[in-house]
């Protein structure tokens, strides 16, 4: 099991040595049982660190913001940023390295292994605690989680409350790290694409009615976009910001402006947005499931991402986020790529 003291010691060491600018890790706000992202800037801060099954955030998102911040620094601080990364988060770092978003030396990875369990799904847990307030969740023995509630302590089998993404996880041990904590035994998953295959077995019209109903719910809050470490475009197709609006711009001109899609949360526009989001993540999504977790209306976004992950694997033998030296999925090709769909 990952010993939190080891993590603190290592964090303290690098902070003391001034080797890193700051460390992004998991901490806890006073009034909640869930872990929060925390930024450690001095060696004394390391006591804020926690490690439990509620550390579900993908902190790599903050590295994207860090790059923007760094661009404005004068003079820029060349030191790396430390980050506590789970297996899935480390894959996100690999994809960003692959895309040359930042350099390997810009980031100091404190890898933590999820071992044989993973992170909990809040919604699943709520179904187990029968309305009682949860105070703490901790890793227990034998793949169990110890849940402390107002009305006593429960032991729940991990498989019952694990997030879906953790049940399908193929990288429980961080792929890259400068310092790795926890057991390094890799876990095997029988079939990470079960849900997708089930969906594929439906008829086209059934699939459409499923997605139509799901995407109709979307309120276009863009939480999925904000939570995703891969969504780092300066300008997203959905918000057209490079159109200069001056005092002379007439209302008609604004309305006539060519745009890919409307901002209104209407079925057809939502479908368009989610198709674009999914295709932009093809071969990049590392299935951290943050989009789905962040979604306030429970759209099964992972099902879309997972489909393209499956196709990338089946058609092109490509697994995102394992090898930073490999070219990205759609920036390379092979002579023998499938061609049966072309006339």
């Amino acid at each position, binding site marked *: 099991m990952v010993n939190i003291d080891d993590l603190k010691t290592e964090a303290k060491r690098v902070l003391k040595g001034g080797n890193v600018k700051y460390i992004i890790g998991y901490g806890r706000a006073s009034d909640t049982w869930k872990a929060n992202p925390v930024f450690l800037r001095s060696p004394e801060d390391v006591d804020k660190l926690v490690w439990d099954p509620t550390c579900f955030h993908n902190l790599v998102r903050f590295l994207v913001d860090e790059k923007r911040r760094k661009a404005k620094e004068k003079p820029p601080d060349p030191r790396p940023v430390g980050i506590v990364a789970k297996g899935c988060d480390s894959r996100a770092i690999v994809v960003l390295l692959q895309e040359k978003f930042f350099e390997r030396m810009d980031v100091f990875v404190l890898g933590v292994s999820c071992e044989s369990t993973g992170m909990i799904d809040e919604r699943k847990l709520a179904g187990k605690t029968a309305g009682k307030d949860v105070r703490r969740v901790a890793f227990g023995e034998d793949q169990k989680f110890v849940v402390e509630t107002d009305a006593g302590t429960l032991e729940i089998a991990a498989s019952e409350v694990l997030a879906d993404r953790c049940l399908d996880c193929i990288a429980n041990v961080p792929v890259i790290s400068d310092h790795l904590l926890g057991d390094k035994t890799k876990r095997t998953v029988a079939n990470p694409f079960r849900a997708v295959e089930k*969906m*594929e077995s439906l008829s*086209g*019209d*059934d*699939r*459409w*009615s*499923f*997605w*139509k109903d799901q995407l109709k719910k979307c309120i276009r809050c863009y939480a999925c976009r904000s939570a995703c470490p891969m969504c780092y475009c300066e300008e997203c*197709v959905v918000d057209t910001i490079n159109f200069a609006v001056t005092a002379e711009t007439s209302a008609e001109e604004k309305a006539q402006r060519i745009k*890919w*899609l*409307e901002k209104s949360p*209407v*079925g*057809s*526009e939502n*479908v*368009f947005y989610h*198709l*674009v989001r*999914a*295709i932009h993540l*093809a*071969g990049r999504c590392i299935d951290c499931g943050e989009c789905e977790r962040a979604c306030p209306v429970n759209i099964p976004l992972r099902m*879309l991402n997972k*489909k*393209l992950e499956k*196709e*990338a694997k089946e*058609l*092109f033998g490509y697994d995102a986020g394992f090898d930073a030296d490999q070219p990205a*999925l*759609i*920036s390379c*090709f092979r*002579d023998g*790529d*499938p*061609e049966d*769909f*072309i*006339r």
Partner: protein
Amino acid sequence: MTEEFEPTIIAFLCKWCSSAGSDLAGVSRMEYPPNVTPIQVMCSGSVSPLYVFSAFHRGADGVLVSGCHPGDCHYIKGNYYARRKLSLVKKLLEYVGLEPERFQVSWVSAAEGQKYTRVIKDFVNELKPLGPQTKLRRSP
């Protein structure tokens, strides 16, 4: 008598091969259905998935992307990139429930006017029984 449904097809044709191929079909006075709106692009590799989604979004009943045969790309490897990208687009569209016939990719060289007419004819014949595309179309 009810009027027969005439599908609207948006065809993204690469400038160097398919567009010239369609031109050849035209100047050779070959007959083919007038359902196609051709859009010339510099290379099939430059066709963003966004173009395809957008065409459906704005009411196309079918979308065709056509480029040079593998190995013949004017830019050496644009069509190889297109092949990868578009196969993913096709899979995704099928997955959300769009009929697979509605999105087609073809290789048509500048000399294949005949093939171009055949591709269009087949496409129109496949689209007719499907009726209008309403799934991805912008709601009024």
